């Protein structure tokens, strides 16, 4: 069997760390080959080497059997290698077409021939079933469409081998389904795919073979048909992993959060939350399920005071906190694990230690008469770092240099430690490996068991189903159904999220 890509004995060092050490990866033509490993195992690095962004210290790369030296992305492009990056490489204020043709523009006497380009984009997108609007601006389109643009970029350049770095981490279930069918089309058209994902289910569903790496070292390659998720997980982590989180029965008590008739309009004066009602009791986890863009972000931002609302009430322990300043709301007992950890969750240029007191810096013992008490701050930070297993060289390391998983753990530690009556967790496990996910889920359930109210927002149905005690389905700014996770199926939820009523969805009760 011929390999389209062979990476043999690859070693890549960064100052002070060996990111890849003697890794082998062989991809057959026409297969979907998974690359699996914990956060920081070295997957992205290996792919960046293949794509020509990094130069390896050692090792050989062969494309279709021929040894090659890929010193920059242009060479990778010429060799037919295309990459869809973990963090999208899109220029936000350019149009879809402009992003696709960038660096390879069709011209007519020096001028970009936009018409021609748009037609080409249209042709390719039709051929592979990648629906996009060629003239839309990136900042105006959904994440799913952005990803399709990324794929189109590689196809436009005639890529034969496509690398997907964690493509599903940012997608909604619907979008994931679409992506999977796109990948299948691509294979049918004769392409080969390398897929990085933390979701074992996806690997089992679409992949042919899987290569596992752990802490920068290659562990081996197995056929998907000959393995199972448990084996993959223990290969990658090096120990047994539990998948369904152990949970006792919830003991719901007093109502902590009660939202009545909440209406929110966005900056363009469009109603995004429409007389929404929701209640979360102490001792229970309420999961919000819904397709992205149905008002989840606005709901969280109105509860936490980051956005102002038109009307209705948001009662926390009976007191209205609607349109209060964030500080007031935090002090009233709301904890918030934000959706975007870089934008809201952390000051990346502060040390981890200072990030640990982001909301409490002005309180005793961290501040006395307006002066910070660094001793107390760093003691607290050290304690949280230990307790929440944040892997960092130290509490004075800048938050920026932590991996996503560890940044997330730091935020969760900080929020849980404040012991809020209501903990809002927005996509708390996005992009994390199974080990980290397990850890975070356990922490959320622990809070519930301590008698706190937890509101969980996630696009991962599996997460919602596993962790929540109650699922509220949000659709077009309204809670359209409340279901019991034990009595529903992903299919039913999916339909509810798409807007069909409970009866239509064929509820079992």
């Amino acid at each position: 069997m011929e390999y389209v890509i062979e990476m043999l004995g690859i070693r890549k060092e960064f100052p002070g760390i060996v990111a890849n050490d003697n890794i082998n990866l062989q991809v057959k033509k026409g297969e979907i080959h998974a690359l699996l490993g914990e956060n920081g195992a070295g997957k992205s690095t290996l792919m960046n080497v293949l794509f020509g962004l990094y130069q390896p210290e050692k090792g050989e790369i062969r494309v279709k059997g021929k040894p090659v030296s890929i010193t920059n992305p242009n060479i990778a492009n010429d060799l037919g290698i295309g990459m869809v990056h973990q963090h999208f490489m899109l220029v936000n204020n350019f149009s879809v077409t402009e992003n696709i043709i960038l660096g390879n523009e069709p011209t007519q006497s020096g001028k970009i021939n936009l018409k021609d380009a748009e037609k080409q984009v249209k042709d390719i997108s039709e051929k592979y079933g990648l629906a996009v609007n060629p003239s839309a601006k990136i900042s105006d389109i959904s994440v799913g469409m952005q990803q399709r643009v990324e794929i189109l970029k590689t196809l436009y350049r005639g890529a034969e081998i496509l690398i997907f770095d964690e493509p599903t981490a940012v997608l909604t279930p619907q979008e994931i389904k679409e992506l999977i069918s796109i990948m299948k089309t691509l294979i049918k058209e004769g392409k080969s795919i390398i897929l990085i994902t933390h979701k074992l289910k996806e690997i089992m569903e679409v992949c042919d073979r899987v290569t596992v790496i752990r802490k920068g070292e290659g562990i081996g390659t197995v056929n998907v048909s000959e393995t199972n998720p448990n084996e993959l997980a223990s290969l990658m982590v090096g120990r047994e992993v539990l998948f369904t989180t152990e949970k006792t029965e919830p003991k719901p008590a007093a109502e902590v959060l009660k939202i009545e008739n909440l209406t929110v309009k966005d900056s363009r004066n469009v109603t995004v939350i429409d007389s929404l009602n929701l209640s979360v009791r102490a001792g229970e986890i309420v999961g919000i399920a819904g397709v992205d863009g149905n008002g989840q972000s606005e709901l969280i931002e109105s509860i936490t005071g980051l956005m102002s609302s038109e009307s209705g009430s948001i009662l926390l322990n009976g007191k209205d906190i609607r349109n209060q300043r964030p500080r007031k709301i935090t002090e009233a007992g709301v904890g918030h694990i934000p959706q975007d950890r870089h934008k809201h969750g952390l000051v990346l240029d502060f040390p981890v230690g200072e990030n640990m007191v982001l909301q409490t810096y002005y309180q005793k013992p961290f501040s006395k008469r307006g002066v910070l008490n660094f001793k107390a701050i760093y003691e607290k930070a050290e304690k949280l770092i230990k307790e929440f297993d944040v892997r960092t060289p130290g509490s004075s390391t800048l938050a920026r240099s932590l991996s996503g998983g560890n940044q997330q753990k730091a935020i969760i530690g900080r929020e849980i430690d404040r012991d809020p009556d209501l903990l809002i967790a927005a996509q708390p496990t996005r992009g994390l490996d199974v080990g980290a996910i397990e850890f975070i889920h356990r922490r959320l359930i622990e809070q519930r068991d301590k008698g706190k109210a937890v509101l969980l927002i996630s696009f991962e149905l599996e997460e919602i189903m596993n962790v929540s005690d109650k699922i509220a389905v949000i659709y077009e700014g309204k809670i359209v159904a409340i279901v019991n996770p034990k009595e529903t199926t992903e299919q039913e939820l999916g339909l509810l999220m798409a807007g069909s009523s409970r009866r239509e969805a064929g509820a079992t009760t």
Partner: protein
Amino acid sequence: MNLTRYFNIIVPAIAVLLGLICGAVIMLITGYDPVAGYAALWNGIFGETYYIGETIRQLTPYILAGLAVAFAFRTGLFNIGVEGQLIVGWFAAVWVGVAFELPKIIHLPLAILAAALAGALWGFIPGLLKARFKVHEVIVTIMMNYIALYLTNHLIQYVLSDKGDKSETIFASASLSSPLFQELTDYSRMHYGIFLALIGALVMWFLLEKTTKGYELRSVGFNQNAAQYAGMNVSRNIILSMVISGAFAGIAGAMEGLGTFQYVSVKNGFTGVGFDGIAVALLGGNTAIGIIFAAALFGGLKVGALNMPSEAGVPYELVEIVIALIILFVASSYFIRWILLRFKKEGK
């Protein structure tokens, strides 16, 4: 960690050295005598106690202007308006200095306070516009500089004098001038303001690094979204930052008005101190201690250079070139660090 500290000292030192060497090379190429040139420079700074006094006098406003720029910088704002804030501070200090005669213990602090308030007001406007309307502070501060210039000129002519070109000299009770320093330095204009500048540096360091407010200001500077998430009032902190920055600049103006000149006169153009403050702040790495050293270097070079044309026939501008090169080398410290690391590795 130790390496960082070592670099923080050695890199600027190397930059200064490189700047001076380049200056010497330029003198050689253009037919001047570098030894004589630098000797004249040295004498112009240290040759007599008078010159030492003048150097300290010169670096005093530089420290404060540098602090003003740095304070804004550290909180994510670029204050090009230090010049204008300095001008209004100068004016306000002198106004208070000539308008009343009060006991020194009240009068002097009052005049300095007026300068700080005027500068703060001049910073408040761009801060407010930035916070409320998201107007870019760079343009507004540039415009405010010109407004400050023309407005104070007008007020000097029509309020502080009768269509004259300058104000009266301030009352002694508002003056920073120091008979002691004057005696020590043979009648230089060195004044007590230097203490104020040093205290200013201490204040900035303490405020930013040690206080709760400083933590907020830095958070807003680095990440407004996270600051808002954490319950901080972003708008208020932006305004506060510009106000404090402006107050530093205003006090720099008081140094001129109450110390160096003791009056304020109509200006044909900018004093340049505010713009030099940008260089001082950046050279000092936007830290309080760094700014003191950078200001000393700047003050020394500027005062010492006055001696170069007469003593060595070297144009004054040579020093400007040297200063520019030093800034450039400090800015390119990545390169110097890289070379140093090479050396260290090979040494091992």
